[in-house]
């Protein structure tokens, strides 16, 4: 497996499309899943946004500074794409009273079912809670990094994450059958 630095150098120096496709292959799943969580299961929109993320990667790769990892940089671009979308269609991505298919929780044996269930649960928490939680748990960002990215004060980031976890934990416990 060729490392990111080599692939980036090949793209910047030779416009190497193969190297670019390798980077897309490597990160596409994580970025698409990240956006699926942020959009609370809107797969079509998430994939459209992910396309924009990778097109931006190609256009702006020369501005990438290796003081952060490429993964973090891509997640930041993905977040900014989501933010643009959220500003246009705020209500669509706010938490809703849509029913979660709790039957999935009982039968969530397959990994795909688990992912779908979590995406549905994301509708039950506020957008900011969802953003902070997803950046922390799935993008592996630290609290200060999330605070810098989202412009949310550090303390608020921490409380969003804690509250989101509490809510999700409660939702899942409520949906469980009482153990006899």
């Amino acid at each position: 497996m060729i490392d990111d630095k080599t692939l980036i150098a090949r793209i910047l120096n030779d416009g190497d499309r193969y190297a670019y496709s390798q980077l897309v292959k490597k990160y596409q799943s994580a970025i698409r899943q990240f956006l699926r969580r942020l959009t609370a299961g809107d797969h079509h929109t998430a994939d459209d946004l992910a396309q924009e993320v990778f097109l931006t990667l190609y256009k702006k790769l020369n501005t990438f500074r290796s003081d952060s990892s490429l993964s973090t940089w891509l997640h930041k671009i993905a977040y900014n794409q989501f933010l643009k979308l959220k500003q246009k269609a705020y209500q669509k991505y706010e938490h809703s009273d849509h029913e979660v298919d709790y039957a999935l929780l009982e039968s969530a044996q397959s990994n795909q079912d688990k992912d779908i269930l979590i995406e549905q649960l994301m509708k039950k928490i506020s957008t900011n809670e969802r953003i902070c939680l997803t950046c922390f748990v799935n993008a592996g960002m630290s609290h200060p990094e999330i605070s810098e990215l989202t412009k949310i004060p550090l303390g608020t980031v921490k409380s969003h994450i804690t509250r989101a976890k509490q809510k999700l934990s409660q939702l899942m416990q409520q949906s469980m059958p009482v153990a006899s």
Partner: protein
Amino acid sequence: MSNNNFDEQELDDFLQFHTELPSEDFTMHIVSKVGKNAKLRRNIFSLFTLLGLLVSTLIFVYFVPLSSFTDILTQLPVYAVALLVFCLMSSSLWLLSNQES
């Protein structure tokens, strides 16, 4: 999913991504889109270069009579004219070629 108590570690594990999304179609689509965008940029660049050349030629012809221009050309040694034509041809070919920038 059998335990009723969701401790923090269990929840963190549950919140991870559980599947790897297939990459082939997505990657192919993105790479072809990048190619199309590059081709479009190149075509726009070529078009405006040609337009620029056309406008500059018209301006040149307007201010300098064609006869004096042909006089200059005929006074030049053959190798200089050949070099000039070669440079023009190669730069035009470079602009219009499909090689990606």
